[in-house]
């Protein structure tokens, strides 16, 4: 890669890294997996940097890589993970927080992990990454209709999830 391209890639990584890791965190439910996933995705971005920088929506392209890396992660491992009682480390130092809001956020992340992988990806891309239905469909590799139907099902499952059962109406559950 030419030096100018490399410098551009570096800037891209620095700018996108926090957002990408957080997206990966919502997809995986684990900060370490999230960092690994984001790093894997950006490695692929480096490999195809010419295509990414020329893309009409580079971020959508990167999200597609991220989602597919996450799918590959599960395919390779062939072992499903079970979330532990321990929450991911957080900005408050990783210690359990008795605050109701913090508990609700953790419950939401846990509930996301109980969604099927595609539904989870659709929810994260639509409501966190703020992708359009079309870009979400491209990233996940399905039709816009599937995005709509899976969104509907995912929201229904979140609403019924035991971890969110105590939340107030109008919130997630």
């Amino acid at each position, binding site marked *: 890669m030419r030096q100018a391209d490399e410098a551009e890639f570096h800037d891209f990584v620095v700018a996108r890294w926090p957002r990408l890791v957080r997206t990966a965190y919502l997809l995986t439910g684990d900060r370490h997996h999230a960092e690994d996933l984001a790093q894997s995705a950006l490695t692929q971005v480096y490999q*195809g940097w010419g295509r990414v920088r020329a893309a009409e929506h580079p971020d959508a392209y990167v999200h597609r890589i991220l989602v597919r890396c996450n799918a590959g992660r599960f395919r390779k491992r062939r072992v499903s993970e079970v979330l532990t009682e321990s929450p991911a480390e957080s900005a408050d130092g990783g210690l359990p927080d008795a605050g109701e809001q913090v508990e609700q956020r953790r419950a939401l992340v846990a509930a996301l992990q109980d969604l099927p992988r595609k539904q989870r990806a659709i929810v994260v891309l639509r409501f966190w990454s703020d992708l359009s239905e079309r870009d979400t469909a491209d990233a996940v590799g399905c039709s816009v209709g599937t995005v709509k139907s899976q969104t509907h099902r995912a929201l229904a499952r979140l609403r019924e999830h035991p971890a969110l059962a105590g939340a107030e109406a109008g919130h997630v559950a």
Partner: protein
Amino acid sequence: MSRESGVRREEIVIDLAPRLAEAAEDLEVGVPPLPAIVAGGRARRRRRAAGATALGAVTAGAVVAVGLAQLGGGGAAKPAVVPPGGVVAPTTPVPAPAAGPGTAADPFRGAYGTWDLASGELGGATWHFTRMIRPGTDDATDGSCSQYPLVDDTYVETGKGETARTSHSFACAGPGGEDPPWKHTTQFAAGPLAGLQTVDLGAKGLGKPGLPGSMVVGLIDETRIAQVRMVFSDGRPAATAQLVKAPEPERGTYFLLVLPGQAAGPIQPGMLEFFDAAGDQVPVPTYH
């Protein structure tokens, strides 16, 4: 769906985005591991290139056969001359028949072919430095070659029929493209040139340790550069590279340096020195 459940879902939709944002932003994110990302990306490119090499080896094998036949029958290629120290002597380029005129979509179409640029002997085996231009593949859309429908492969072949590709980044220059004075220098293990940092190129089904040496190859702007030297920090004397004019459509001159013995490691900035015709050193940017 009841009215109640419909309202409920709308509330969820409205509220989910900020809730997800809050959950995500609970996570403290450190600095990106840029060196690891770049190293991983480069490794992926190398693996991909090695995969393409396996495909190209079939074609390259045919080139070897032709080259050997020419050597045996007194054809255009000249026998190798091996000066002391293993510095190469170029043979006469043998352009292949043009495939036809270039087009706007494929400006190099008329330039596809194979050239035997140099050959030599090392460790008792003959090697050939052969440059190929062929229609681009998906590899060419990566990185800096994205705008050119061209893959330029440079192979090193030996009399044992083993081949390794150095890089497909040589021929990024073209009409309207950026044109640095030299584009790429790579130290590569021609399949049988063992012990180099990029030996994995040869290890992907092509390389077998055979020749005790290494080759450095690059492309420089012939209008400015008249001499290329490689200097070493371990006390070895500097080696002067052999210059070989690049076939059209490329401009410039390849420099080739064959070094006997095990490679000391990757080329570091400052190891290559460039001089103009007056003997003045010319600063040249490097691309890896």
